[in-house]
């Protein structure tokens, strides 16, 4: 059964069903495009008139920047003796917990003329601050808020590499730098690429921050035109899907050629940590600088608004009304994370263990889904569910909301789950079979425990994205159902900054706490 070539039939059927589910948004876009008689020529002309190039430029820049930042941080925190390591382990993944529109809104206000940053930098004699608009502002903000997509898988990979790797380097007479370049780097390449892929797709789909920072990508145009010019918006949606598919396939080809030969080690020794010596302080400053800009800056602005609200309270602050939404947010996040990983597992299994095309093709659909704006994913699901009478009971129910999250965030679980499956040597299963263990027993006793760290990593990413999701939550949640993100949006929309800031800080605490429970402890 565990042959590397053929997939067990039940698994193939499950993977196919999940894969088909993930084609929903693509089918929706195509049907809408036909329905609206979208003129391919004019859409392509409009897209290549700027939005497509801007989208590609931003996605490339952000994924390179986040790749560099995330990998450096992972190496520093996991493989060196950088001071205050434990603190960085807890703080470094946190930027993922900010809804991008909150972070961007806070940074725009903080860095604007007369804002907090001006007062702060004036102490150091700096009077001119860079303007928070346009390409560099969008790229900078997104790099700082997406590097955890790279950091998390790379940190997990570095953590799982056995110390014997570096020992081998030493015994071969390699210098430390060469050991890093020739032995360690090749082992983490696929993890870095997997993270960068998520960053690129996220950047393509991003609306809130990019529109606030005034950089017009395909997604911003889609939102602007959705009502006024639907055929252009849908046409751009198709262009965006093609762009995402190209990136996914290219990355897949490229990363296939990389060898990641060292399997997840059950080597219980602590990995040797490189002594940085004099460079410790450089490493420390780097960690301080990153966390100060990614977490410190927005938190200071939010805390400032919140405190202003306490000072001039006009009866608008109500912390009690955040308790229900906080519980909803946490419960949705944890259940979505678990369900997503469960749904992706059959695909990940086929993808990692067999040559079945179902695995690869389904996985690609799963990953492309992440690049689509939440608005399109949500409308596609509405359209699909209402199409079939048998599914109507699902409409505006919590299970449907969870389905939307699975559809949107499945990509984040795909690669980590694949690596989790790949980390279990099939020979162990063979051995257990010769000892007479049935498939269920083999899965429970051997595969599941060994896959746990990788699956937890997958769940952690999905969790952090779910708790801050806004567009699909607003459209699909049951009536009168509120999460922290919808609370933040609602207060912000009405101009009640203090209440919005409080809700944002509560969200940060909730996701930080949940992330710690599910994911981050394992690398500590």
């Amino acid at each position, binding site marked *: 059964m565990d042959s590397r070539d053929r997939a067990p039939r039940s698994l193939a059927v499950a993977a196919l069903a999940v894969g088909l589910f993930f084609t929903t948004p693509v089918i929706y876009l195509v049907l809408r495009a036909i329905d609206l008689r979208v003129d391919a020529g004019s859409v392509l002309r409009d897209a290549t008139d700027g939005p497509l190039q801007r989208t590609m430029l931003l996605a490339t820049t952000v994924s390179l920047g986040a790749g560099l930042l995330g990998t450096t941080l992972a190496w520093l925190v996991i493989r060196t003796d950088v001071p205050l390591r434990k603190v960085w382990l807890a703080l470094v993944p946190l930027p993922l917990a900010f809804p991008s529109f909150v972070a961007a809104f806070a940074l725009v206000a903080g860095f604007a003329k007369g804002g907090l940053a001006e007062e702060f930098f004036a102490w150091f004699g700096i009077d001119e601050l860079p303007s928070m608009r346009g390409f560099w502002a969008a790229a900078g903000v997104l790099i700082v808020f997406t590097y955890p997509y790279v950091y998390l898988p790379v940190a997990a990979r570095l953590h799982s590499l056995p110390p014997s790797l570096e020992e081998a380097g030493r015994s071969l007479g390699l210098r430390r730098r060469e050991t890093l370049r020739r032995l360690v780097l090749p082992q983490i390449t696929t993890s870095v690429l997997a993270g960068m892929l998520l960053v690129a797709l996220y950047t393509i789909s991003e609306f809130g921050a990019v529109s606030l920072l005034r950089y017009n990508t395909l997604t911003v145009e889609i939102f*602007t035109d959705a009502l006024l010019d639907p055929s252009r918006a849908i046409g751009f949606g198709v262009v965006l899907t093609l762009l995402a598919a190209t990136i996914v396939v290219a990355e897949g080809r490229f990363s296939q050629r990389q060898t990641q030969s060292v399997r997840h080690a059950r080597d219980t020794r602590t990995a040797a940590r490189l002594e940085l010596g004099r460079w410790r302080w450089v490493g420390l400053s780097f960690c301080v600088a990153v966390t100060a800009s990614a977490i410190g800056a927005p938190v200071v602005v939010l805390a400032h608004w919140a405190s202003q609200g306490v000072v001039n309270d006009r009866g608008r602050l109500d912390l009690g009304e955040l308790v229900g939404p906080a519980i909803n947010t946490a419960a949705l996040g944890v259940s979505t994370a678990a369900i997503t990983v469960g749904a992706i597992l059959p695909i990940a299994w086929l993808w990692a263990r067999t040559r079945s095309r179902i695995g690869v093709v389904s996985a690609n659909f799963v990953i492309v889904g992440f690049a689509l704006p939440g608005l399109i994913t949500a409308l596609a699901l509405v359209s699909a569910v209402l199409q079939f009478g048998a599914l109507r009971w699902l409409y505006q129910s919590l299970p449907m909301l969870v389905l939307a999250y699975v559809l949107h965030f499945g990509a984040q679980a795909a690669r980590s789950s694949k690596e989790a499956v790949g980390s279990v040597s099939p020979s162990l299963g063979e051995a257990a079979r010769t000892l007479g263990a049935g498939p269920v027993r083999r899965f429970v006793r051997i595969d599941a425990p060994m896959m746990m760290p990788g699956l937890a990593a997958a769940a952690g990413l999905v969790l952090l994205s779910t708790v801050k999701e806004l567009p699909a939550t607003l459209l699909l949640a049951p009536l009168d159902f509120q999460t922290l993100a919808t609370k933040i949006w609602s207060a912000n929309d*009405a*101009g009640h900054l203090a209440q919005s800031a409080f809700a944002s800080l509560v969200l940060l605490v909730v996701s930080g706490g949940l992330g710690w429970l599910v994911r981050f402890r394992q690398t500590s």
Partner: protein
Amino acid sequence: MRIRSTAVLLVAFALVGASCGSSDNTASDDNGSITVYSGRSEDLIAPIFEAFEAETGIEINVKYDDSANLALLIETEGDASPADVFISQSPGAVGFLDGKELLAEIPSEITERVDPAYRSPDSTWVGVTARARTLVYNPDLIAEADLPQSIMELAQPEWAGQVGIAPGNGSFQDFVTAFRFQAGDDVVAGWLGALADAGAPTYAKNSAIVDAVSRGEIKIGLVNHYYVLGTLAEDPDAPVANHFFPADDVGSLVIVTGAAILEQSENAANAQKLLEFFLSDEAQMMFSAGEGEYPLVDGIAIPDGLPPLTGLGYTVDLAELGGGLEATAAIIRDSGLQG
């Protein structure tokens, strides 16, 4: 680790189950309850819903989102839409549904409470409250006497690069549509192009413009009047004020928050009661006192510090407007303002 994660999951499922149960109770309560899709944010309109529920005993279930997104949702849902009432901050969004023939006719006893300038000619939606387009300015940086007296003046060189604009915002798009109707596409395209060429700074939304003016980043910007009131409510010392253009200038366009009943609503009777309530003296006073919006029923006091509502209403008949809303999108885009 495994045991603890499992425990967390179980707790989570229990919680979701619990909230599922409670939301089901309200949704399945078919006791004449109505479903409202509200483009007006919860912080602003929830007190009105509560007053209605208390008065009539009719339960209201609400979905809040941006007006444009809700209009798209209703279009996608079609006949299956659970919505009975749609509240739109933008005439564009409600006009979009009108164009798709998804709105029911509202009885004239209800619509007649409101001046014809502030409701649709075919009675498919009615204005509930209104906001005026204004020029927000920073009184520390510029005297009111020096401000322009017409929207056309903003395209002149003396204002180059100083007018904050939110080109992707629904109210701005509505303003451009009305402007096209009044002055013709060529004039509007020239006006937008002049602003873009002069480097008018753009923002994602009205509130961002008011913030920028308050910080002194720019002197003036085109917004809706109540964003200024909201900023002043949070910080009474903020250096921002509204400047109203003369009544016949499209710069003082009046944009209504409209309410409509969906064609497929199975509870039109109660939906009508809600619209009636919106236009009652009681609710109109609540709107005016709580939100800083203009009431639309005669005899209700307008918010402190605002001039009477005299500006042009948004009575654009999309059928008469060549190219419809797509042309508005194209004109804004082609001006180069967004890039």
